């Protein structure tokens, strides 16, 4: 049980600076921005209540962006987490050999997007390295990686390349502290490998999984940079996400559309956070 300090004055002194700034830069203007979402445009300033919210759901570009964002998050995040977890489980017993690997595996986090994107272009171009290998081995014309529906493949590969390293390290840290006695007991009870992972490992490292999930979601939104550098403001339909929509509204000076889309995006995230927190609480309640 955590000790609760009852010192009202100290509470105010410690809480005020961070929260005041946070409120000033994020929360108050966020509430104030609702005004811009409810006027017809910033010049005439007719108050139209929720018309913008209704009309945006008839906007084909917005619907596409909305769908793609949800799909990208729902598919790419679990993919990344599962990949990192599996590699971590495989590497777990080789701790002595992976100390150098642990150091290099987080390098991609430090590499600026723009530079490495120019290298990725060399790989995925129509005449790039990967198509070179494909045509040499299978004797067919290379695939159009960046043009159409296949774009998801390079994007998710870059996502995994960039962020799996840190996730693997987090998982390894967690795995190294799973009590060995639990596994011994499970082996005596005749539990197989998969069963051990499900009933012992996963519950034990749950806090790490929670942290990894939060980070991975943040990072999946940051993948917009890579998509943007690879494909510009108007990528193929399959990768047109909400950030493109908001950015393009900004350049078109369509502020009421911009703020409306931003509010809908934030509602999406509020729901997501609520799901995450209630899931965390349920698991904590279960393990007690």
């Amino acid at each position, binding site marked *: 049980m*955590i*000790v609760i*300090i009852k*010192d009202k004055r*100290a*509470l105010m002194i*410690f*809480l005020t600076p*961070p929260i005041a700034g946070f409120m000033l*830069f*994020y*929360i*108050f*203007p966020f509430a*104030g921005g609702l005004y*811009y979402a409810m006027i017809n445009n910033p010049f005439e300033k007719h108050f139209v209540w929720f018309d913008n919210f209704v009309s945006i759901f008839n906007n084909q570009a917005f619907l596409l962006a909305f769908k793609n964002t949800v799909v990208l998050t729902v598919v790419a995040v679990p993919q990344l987490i599962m990949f990192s977890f599996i*590699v971590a489980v*495989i*590497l777990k*017993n*080789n701790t002595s050999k992976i100390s150098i*690997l*642990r150091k290099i*595996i*987080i390098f991609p986090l*430090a*590499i*600026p*997007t*723009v*530079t490495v994107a*120019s*290298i990725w272009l*060399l790989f995925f*171009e*129509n*005449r*790039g390295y990967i198509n070179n290998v494909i045509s040499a081995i299978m004797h067919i014309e*290379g695939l159009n990686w960046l043009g159409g529906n296949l774009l998801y493949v390079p994007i998710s590969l870059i996502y995994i390349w960039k962020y799996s390293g840190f996730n693997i390290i*987090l998982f390894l840290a967690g795995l*190294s*502290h799973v009590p060995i006695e639990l596994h011994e007991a499970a082996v005596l009870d005749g539990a197989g490998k998969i069963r051990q992972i499900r009933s012992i490992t996963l519950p*034990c490292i749950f*806090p*790490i999984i929670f*942290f990894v999930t*939060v980070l991975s979601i943040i990072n999946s*939104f940051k993948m*917009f*940079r890579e998509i943007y550098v690879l494909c510009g403001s108007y990528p193929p339909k399959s990768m047109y996400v909400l*950030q493109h929509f*908001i950015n393009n509204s*900004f350049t078109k000076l369509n502020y009421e559309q911009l703020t409306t889309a*931003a509010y809908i*995006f*934030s509602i999406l*995230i*509020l729901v997501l*956070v609520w799901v995450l*927190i209630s899931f965390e609480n349920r698991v904590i309640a279960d393990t007690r």
Partner: protein
Amino acid sequence: MKIVTNGSNKTRNIYNFFSKIIIVIVAGIVLLPIYMIFINSFMNYDELNQCITLSSNITDKYMSIKLIPSHFTFKQYITILLESAKFNQSFWKSFEYSFLITIGQVVLGTMAGFVFSRFDFKGRNVLFFIILSAMLMPFQVTMVPNYIVLNKLGLLNTDSAIILPGVFSAFGMFIMRQFMQHIPDNLVETAQIDGANTYSLFLKILLPQCKSGILALFILCFVDTWNMIEQPLIFLSSEEKMPLSIVIREALNLSPETVFAPCILFIMPAICMFFTFERALIEGVEAVWLGVKK
């Protein structure tokens, strides 16, 4: 550490063999693009031109990977270090932004983390819910409120336009709250019995326990702000305020033959940081985790 396996020696050997192969493959995939940036930084103009000709000019030939330059040259490095004032200027701008934002986040984050983990007050959970949500918002969403305030305060196109929203962002508060929540309580109890007031409790008992958490936050925050792109593009307009990340982006379009050397110099601070503090980063994460187990 004793490994629990119900298999024989032979299966263990096969398992070891495969995990070694996986290590090599993972390391190779991670390093290949970085190696290519590195090697490109030693190429001269003609060779680079050959290497990075993209398929915009239609040819039937495929590009093939070039792993070693035929003529080593330091020309790119000499050009940017000696002849380009812009590089120097933007490098220090980047440093200024990242350093100030990171310091600010560490200070405010520890304060907020202390409050969220050790105090109970009305609305604490709601506030934390808001902080977590704000942290998950992509830049395109927080850009709107940030822009409104910066505009009202007349801070657009000043250094503060980059620094202040970064300092007050939710990330530091979240990390430090998670970390402090799991610091063992017996230390706090003992200090309270000894009659320590809240401030010395914070400064003398909790802060020293937070060392690895603070370092973890420091690294993550520094690397993130070091690589920022969107904020300067929206909040700044004058050339001389742009950080290195933006300058490199522009150089990539204008003169790709000199961009790889700045890239290598650009990633150095972040990579050095990872190399030096990797242990602390992991300890920070482990501490959070171990705390939960108690």
